[in-house]
């Protein structure tokens, strides 16, 4: 029977055999993409975070003092800095300007840096003349647990990086 049908309609022909596979292709591609997305999220949630550096750097750029003297309001440090234990738990303050700068809790000379590690999750308050409030708060959060906390940490870092 089948040999009497035109080749295009015959289910035995190679083209006819390929049709169901082609029909399944979009579904397979969607499934594949979903699996990739799921695998990426799972990896981001459960893979241990191994930071290249635990330093959270803030730098006073060259010329800051001159800009301030010219009346410009220059903010280098945010009023609150959030760090995470074991990941970015070292506050690194670098003065690339030409004059000494009170930077967070320390007086930092030109060309000098101040590297302050944190070992306990807590909220730290520092007197800081660089802020109008005279205070700098450093919130040190605990190391995120594998799963949602790790994923949230990574997403937050990505969002912060995209804002820079």
């Amino acid at each position, binding site marked *: 029977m089948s040999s009497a049908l035109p080749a295009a309609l015959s289910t035995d022909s*190679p083209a006819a055999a*390929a049709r169901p*596979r*082609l029909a*399944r*292709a979009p579904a*397979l591609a969607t499934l*594949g993409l979903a*699996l*990739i*997305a799921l*695998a*990426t*999220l*799972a*990896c*981001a949630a459960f*893979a*241990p*975070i*191994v*930071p*290249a*550096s*635990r*330093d959270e750097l803030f730098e006073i750029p060259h010329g800051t003092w001159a800009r301030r003297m010219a009346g410009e309001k220059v903010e280098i440090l945010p009023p609150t800095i959030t760090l995470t234990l074991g990941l970015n738990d*070292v*506050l690194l303050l670098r003065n690339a300007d030409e004059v*000494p700068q*009170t930077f967070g*809790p*320390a*007086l*930092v*000379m030109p*060309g*000098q*840096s*101040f*590297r*302050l*590690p944190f*070992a306990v999750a807590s909220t*730290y308050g*520092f*007197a800081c*003349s660089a802020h109008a409030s005279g205070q700098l708060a450093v919130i040190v959060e605990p190391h995120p647990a594998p799963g949602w906390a790790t994923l949230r940490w*990574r997403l937050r870092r*990505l969002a912060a990086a995209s804002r820079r």
Partner: protein
Amino acid sequence: MTRLVNPLPALSDGGAARLPRRLLLALLLAGAAGAALAAGGAPAGLPLKAGVFEPPRQAPEFALRGSDGAEVSLARFRGKVVLMAFGFANCAAVCPVTLGTLAEARRGLGPAAEAVQVVFVTVDPERDDAAKLKAYLAAFDPSFVGVTGAPAALAAMRRDYGVTARRQGTGNGYVMDHSSSIYLIDRAGKLRAQMPYGHAPGDFVHDVKLLLAS
């Protein structure tokens, strides 16, 4: 003759059969992407518990009246690690904790404590004379040396170290709002580090041992 190029090579004949292999490859790539999110590399080494100055500068020198009756300068303690704190004897909260911590750290150092000098610089010269500082510090550790002097000289010293101090209140009951870090000065007189308030005595022991060994 136009040569037709199949835009979906993966879905051509036999492509569906190869899809699982491609999926596997994609999953591996996804895994690598996830790992890349973590960014590889070794964490930086942190030798001190305190905040470290790099490069260290020479600690600003001073010459002021000491609670032991002699002039106090950093040069006098060259060869020792100096732990220098700023505060005042009437301080009810921060200074007793700081001095108690430093006293315990010295005890924890054992014989190495001989190579450590604690210097307590008043931010309240109006009330803290040499005798008062001596009596106050002796309650923590008789080896501690207090420093007082003219208000202008002490203000200049605070400026050199980035210390803030502000009088709060009126009358005899006023208090001094002041920054509370402890400065770590090595045997050569270099300002190596600054320990924020609240660290345990063990952290000072750890850092002092490293500074003595360096």
